[in-house]
């Protein structure tokens, strides 16, 4: 049976665990633990290893949803994780001091994977901090000569996460028909 996966990445507290939870068919396996350092100021728990969820597709196929750990930034882990992935969902937390730095970091880190597949970007916490705006993100992306879907996302809302993943799929193939 074929196995497929989508990777959710982004900084600490961006909502990766919650987003996976929103669209997973089974309760996701969480590896969160109480946060004890800088992450404590942003959320009460943080992802130690990986988050994992699954979407059961017709015919018994499965789409695996993997969340990268938010803290550890060691490339060897991420290389393993993205291997064979369909595409990338990047979640950014708009309350962080400089979300553009985060965006640049993750786009550069996953550059090879994105070139081979596609990425869709969700900006969370916009109800708490409305700057930068979605337009600002597009301007920033244009300065890198990039153009990706960027949506304001409430990771708790299945509809938001679903639309974000749909945009990823259409970026891979606009001729897809639902």
């Amino acid at each position, binding site marked *: 049976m074929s196995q497929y996966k989508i990777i959710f990445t982004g900084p600490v507290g961006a909502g990766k665990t919650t987003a996976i939870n929103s669209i997973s068919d089974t309760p996701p396996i969480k590896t969160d633990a109480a946060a004890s350092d800088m992450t404590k100021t942003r959320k009460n728990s943080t992802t130690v290893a990986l988050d994992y969820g699954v*979407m059961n597709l017709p015919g018994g196929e499965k789409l695996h949803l993997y969340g990268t750990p938010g803290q550890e930034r060691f490339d060897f882990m991420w290389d393993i994780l993205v291997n064979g992935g369909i595409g990338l969902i990047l979640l950014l937390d708009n309350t962080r001091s400089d979300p553009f*730095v985060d965006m640049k970091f993750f786009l550069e880190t996953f550059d090879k994977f994105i070139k081979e597949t596609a990425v869709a970007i969700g900006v969370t916490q916009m109800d708490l901090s409305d700057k930068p705006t979605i337009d600002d993100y597009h301007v920033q992306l244009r300065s890198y000569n990039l*153009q990706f879907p960027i949506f304001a996302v409430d990771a708790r809302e299945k509809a938001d996460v679903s639309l*974000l993943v749909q945009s990823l799929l259409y970026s891979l193939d*606009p*001729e*897809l028909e639902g």
Partner: protein
Amino acid sequence: MDNIKNPLKVALHGMDARSGKMMAMYLQGPCKGMAIVVAAANADVDIFDADSISGRQLLNACHAKDMHRPIIAMSLNQLDYAQVIAIKKPVKTDDMLAALATAKTMLGAAGGTPDKLNQNHRVDQKVAKDEAISPAASRPEASKPITDAAEEKPVLKRYVLDRGELKKTSKHKAAMQLSETGFGAFIGIVPGLDVNDPKQFKQAHYDPKEYFQGYIDSAFVTCHSLAQESQLNTGWMPLIIFPKSHEVWLDADDNQLRSFSGLVINPALGKKISVTPISRDLARQEKALEKYQSMDAFLWKIACWASKGRYPVNIDISQPVYLKHWPNFTRLLVTPHALRISALLVQGPRTLPSIAESLNIKPQYVFVFISAAYSLGLAGQAKRESDILSKPPEVKPSKKHGILGRILNKLIGKKAS
């Protein structure tokens, strides 16, 4: 082999126990045991995570004092510290090995044994006691805050203090995704016009200025230039516009709004429509929070209802149109095939009929999407010669077309055929 026999002893700073454990595994695994993590008091080298608040503070403090042993600092950003060995994140094994080798060379050049250096070491007693990651501290049960949360308050941006802001459900609610089935009833039709008939394409346009859309658009421009709350008086429901927060407030439901948006405004009535600046206090007075909407979402749906499946009159249907970037679909009315159209158009300008043809969809779905995107300034006629002369890029179906389609159907809740 020498690395394994005599690994560098490193102390970690600005990392919590889990990051420290990960780092220890990293040094042991990919870095082939060139260094081991020890308590700060016994270390030869200090490694800082300069992106954590405590890490940066400790690095600054350590650097400001006489450096008695090599420092390695990891950061996303360029670091500008004399004598500090900087590693750019994401940490690559080669970079870490090179940094450790440099640190080892520095230790050798200093002519001291680690023990001797440690006697002189004054990184910071507090670091050694509370904040450095020691092997013991990397045990889960030993996990504890590096510093008090109070000491670690990050520099955050201004947050919304008014909790009422979060109750503006219309403003923040997720998008409504329209299917083909519900489209006609929701968007409406123009009697006597078949917008999907190529022979009638030339007539399948509308002038936004003749509808509520045009007056709203004009009012938004006025409000932004005044930078003041204003009221649009139409003889129907007053629309309050908040240019600073990019919101509107209207005491009407979508059914009422749809009816009004679909009507051509009589020119005599149009002359009476006005925009009046109002005081902030008056504008904010006793407003039902659920009736606030974002300007963009409001204008987008008004354009959909005015369009009724037609395209804006300023668009030449025989010439390509561009899409500046993906619309923020999670906060907009998602018309049928809007995501597909966006994915296609961001690849390059196309004519409206060619979009419908490429995607094998009814032209009305392209027209309504372009009307909405045009209202927000996201879509327009391609004017650059290169856009017009160059052929639109060929759409290449993905090799994973089948599985992508199955995932999509799962997401939109469509059963497999």
